Structure formats: C-alpha cells, structure tokens
C-alpha cells in the first residue's frame, strides 16, 4: 500500500497510527533528529525558533534571515519623532545560536512542499519535517501611482518596515522648514499595526510643536475613521496639538509625484514638503512561493489556529503579520502566535495532538507625546466550534494617555526585545 504519511494520519485520525508515526516522526524518517526550518527572524520567527529549541531540545532548528540586525518597527515612531535614535531600535542576533539555533544569513527564494525543501539565494537547499514562514508583510508600492519612481528618488517613504526609510523620514522632517506640510497616507485595513499611523502622527506633531510650530499635518486615511484607539488619539490631538492635524477620512492616497511633491486622492492634489504614504500590504512574497497566500482575497495566509499550519499546504506553518485573521497584526501578537505554533510543532513531531484550547493576547502601546501614552489590550481564546479565536470581552483601550502607560511602553519594548532575541 503506498500512502503518504499525511494521508495515513488523515485516515487513522491520530489514533493507533499516530503511535506508529510517533516512532519515526519523533526521530525523523531516517532515524535522524526532526528538522524544522524557520524563515524570517523578526518578531514571529526568532521567537518561534527560540521556543522550538526550549520545548523540543531534540529538534534541529535552522533560522534563515538575510539581515545582519533586527531593526524594530515597534518604537520606530519615536525615532521619526526625534525622541530616540536608530541604535535604540537595532539589535544583534548574537544570542540566538546560544539556544542551539542554526542561523543562516540568506534569503529563501524557492520552496518545494512536495519534497519538503527550501532553497536560498545563495544556493543552499535544506530539507524539513516542518517549515515555519514568518516573513512579515509585502508593502504594495505598486498600488500607489508614481510611488516607486518617487521612492527611488528619495522623495517618498512608507517607513512601514524599520530601517533606512525610518532614518530618511526623520532626516526629511528635520530638514523641513517651519510652516511646512507633512502628508501621511494610511492604507485600508487590514494592515500591519492598526494604531501605528496614528501614533506616528502624534509623535511628528509633538516634534513640530517643539521645533516648528507653524507646520501642518494632513492625514489621508483610506478608512472612514481612525481605526484604532480613536478616543486616545482624539484626546491627544485635541489636548496637545490643537489646529495642527487636518484629518481626512475616506481619502485614500492614490498617487504621488516626487518632482512636484504632490500626493493625490480621487478628489484632490495636495502639496507636501514631506510625503509619507503607506501603501496597502499583503503577506510576504515568501508565502506565495509556498502556495500558502490562499485566503479569499489572495493577500493573506489561512491557517488552522491550533497549530498555525497552512490550510493549503501540509507541514507549512505561518505566523505573524502574514496570517489571515481577525487578530491585530502586531509584534506582540506575532511572538504569541510563535509560542503556540512552536508548542504545536513539538507535539506534532512527537505524534501527539497539540493543545486544543490555546489562549493568546495582544497589547499595543502607543505613545501620544514625549511623556504620555496609552494601550489597547485584548485576550483571544480559541473557540473549537468557530475554529478561530474569540475575544471573551473585558479588554479594550485606554480612553486617554498618561505617564504610567508611557513608562510601561518603554519597559514592554525592553522586555519583548529580550524575549525575542536574548
């Protein structure tokens, strides 16, 4: 009888056969250690690799990432607002090998889910028993007319991945004369970090208030209204920056012109001194390589929420921003998904069923000025009937900011960086 391991599991329903499978899966088909390859060492991937080794010390874990350093998106708005520098966001990967993680500095360019191999740009091919994809987002610069030309000319940035664009946006704001106009475009949901644009607006306003008080911020939001922590941001904008922020709902930025420094909407051309348009997003291209960018929109990856295994391709798990879910796309969430996924993989490799009722939580802190901040915090419980996470209630957002949350936001950053990378 020639059936694959997966078919075998399907027909046997994790019963008798799983004990048999456990024998070989636990040790790998050839008696070798089970192999897990994790792609992307951001919030999700680095955490998953660490916890796979913690909970499955017998597992051979390889983590593939092209970047030398981890540069955090969380807290990058403080750099843009001039309250921190790039060094503060930048962290090394030096501690990860101490956990027995094999780090490969490369980009994955091909995945063969049939043979269960990944291939890197550098030409290495690695086999896996389980594959974890955590590539974050792809920013669709092709969906905003003129963006790519203007971006190449250094005239517009999204700065929705932390790094060179974060530093460039800061430089442009510093060079802008007092009385200048900063135009920011916000994509429609779902996008990475729902409160992120509004935190950025607050901290740029905080900078203008100190350094160039005659300046204006024009907000072109694709969404009808502020999508996250609206009372918090409304409170901050009215209390600290009255008259500075011109918020326009249902006003998607559809084009940019770098030579004229103009951002266009369907109705208007708006002259800018500094342009920060954040285009729509989708799951990282890596997910398309694996054939797992399969939700109804073709933008995100549908998963089984107990194991974060793809609904389309067996033995491939997806975590973090790339997942199709009614869960906020945050670094905090990515690390928590990583832990549920790591535990599930350890159980699956041992031929057991993963935890049937996982619980995860999200918290996003947002600073609203140099001394105040707020948060949104919710718990999400797996619901077996609905096969997804359900909010049991009791969570929510701070209606106003304060110093306490501002201080805890800093502590959160220090602790999550340690949790992901130390």
């Amino acid at each position: 009888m020639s059936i694959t391991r997966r078919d075998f599991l399907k027909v046997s329903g994790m019963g008798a056969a799983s004990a048999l499978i456990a024998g070989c899966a636990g040790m790998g088909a050839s008696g070798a250690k089970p192999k897990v390859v994790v792609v992307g060492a951001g919030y999700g991937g680095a955490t998953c690799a660490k916890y796979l080794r913690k909970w499955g010390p017998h597992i051979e874990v390889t983590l593939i990432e092209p970047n030398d350093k981890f540069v955090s998106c969380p807290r990058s708005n403080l750099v843009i607002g001039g309250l921190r520098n790039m060094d503060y966001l930048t962290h090394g990967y030096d501690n990860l090998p101490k956990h027995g993680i094999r780090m490969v500095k490369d980009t994955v360019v091909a995945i063969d889910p049939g043979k269960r191999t990944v291939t890197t740009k550098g030409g290495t091919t690695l086999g896996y028993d389980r594959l974890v994809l955590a590539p974050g987002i792809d920013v669709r610069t092709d969906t905003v007319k003129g963006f790519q030309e203007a971006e190449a000319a250094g005239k517009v940035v999204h700065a929705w991945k932390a790094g060179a664009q974060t530093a460039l946006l800061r430089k442009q704001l510093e060079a802008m004369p007092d009385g200048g106009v900063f135009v920011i475009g916000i994509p429609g949901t779902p996008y990475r970090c729902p409160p992120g644009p509004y935190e950025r607006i607050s901290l740029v306003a905080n900078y203008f208030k100190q350094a160039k008080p005659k300046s204006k911020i024009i907000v072109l939001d694709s969404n009808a209204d502020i999508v996250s922590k609206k009372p918090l941001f409304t409170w901050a904008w009215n209390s600290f920056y009255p008259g500075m922020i011109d918020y326009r709902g249902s006003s998607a930025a559809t084009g940019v012109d770098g030579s004229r420094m103009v951002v266009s909407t369907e109705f208007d051309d708006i002259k800018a001194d500094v342009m920060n348009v954040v285009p729509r997003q989708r799951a990282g291209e890596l997910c398309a390589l694996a054939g797992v960018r399969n939700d109804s929109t073709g933008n995100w990856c549908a998963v089984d929420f107990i194991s974060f295994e793809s609904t389309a391709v067996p033995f491939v798990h997806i975590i973090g921003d790339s997942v199709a879910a009614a869960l906020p796309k945050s670094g905090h969430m990515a690390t928590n998904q990583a832990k549920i996924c790591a535990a599930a993989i350890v159980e699956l490799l041992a031929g057991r069923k993963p935890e049937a009722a996982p619980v995860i939580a999200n918290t996003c802190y947002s600073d609203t000025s140099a001394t105040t901040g707020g948060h949104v915090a919710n718990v999400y419980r797996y619901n077996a009937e609905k096969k997804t996470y359900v909010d049991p209630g009791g969570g929510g957002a701070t209606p106003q900011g304060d110093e306490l949350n501002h201080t805890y936001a800093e502590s959160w950053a220090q602790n999550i960086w340690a949790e992901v990378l130390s």
Partner: protein
Amino acid sequence: MHKMLILAAASAALLGANAFAVERGELLASTCLSCHGPDGHSTKVQGAVPSLAGLEKGYLVKSLQEFKAGTRASSVMKRLASGYTDEEYALMADYLSKLK
C-alpha cells in the same frame, strides 16, 4: 483489527504517560512574558513592569483575581486578567512560581 486495538491501547497509554511536552500552564504563561520578560525576569529599571519569576503561587492567583475584580488598581492587568479563568490563573501561577 486485533492488532489495531492493541496499537490503539498503546497509543492511549503513550498519550496518558506524557500528555504534552509543554504543559498548559507554561503555554498560557509564556504569552505573559512579552511584558514581564524572559522567564519572568523584567528589566531592573525604575518603573519597569514587575518580574513574576518565583512569586508565591497564592499571591499570583490572588493578584490576578483582584485585577479582574478591580479591587487592585492596574493600568493594563484588568483588561488581560479578565480573559482567563480561575483554573487558568492557578495553572499559570503554578508555573510562574517555580521559575528561578
């Protein structure tokens, strides 16, 4: 068929002997550590989120119950504690209390 039954029994025994490599309390509590720090050790700076490692089990459970009830003031813990059951408090507290 007979063979299948024996195997099923063996499989059940296997599951019974070692239900999970990661116990539920540890898995639940792991998601608290993004704020409370690796292995429950927060940074030791002024105003940091408190460390949880090695706190007494009863104290941990009581704290979570009081956060939920609102009888102990909190910035964020009421919103988080509200999403878990008393049984889960005990499982998490058991794990956290044993962290060195």
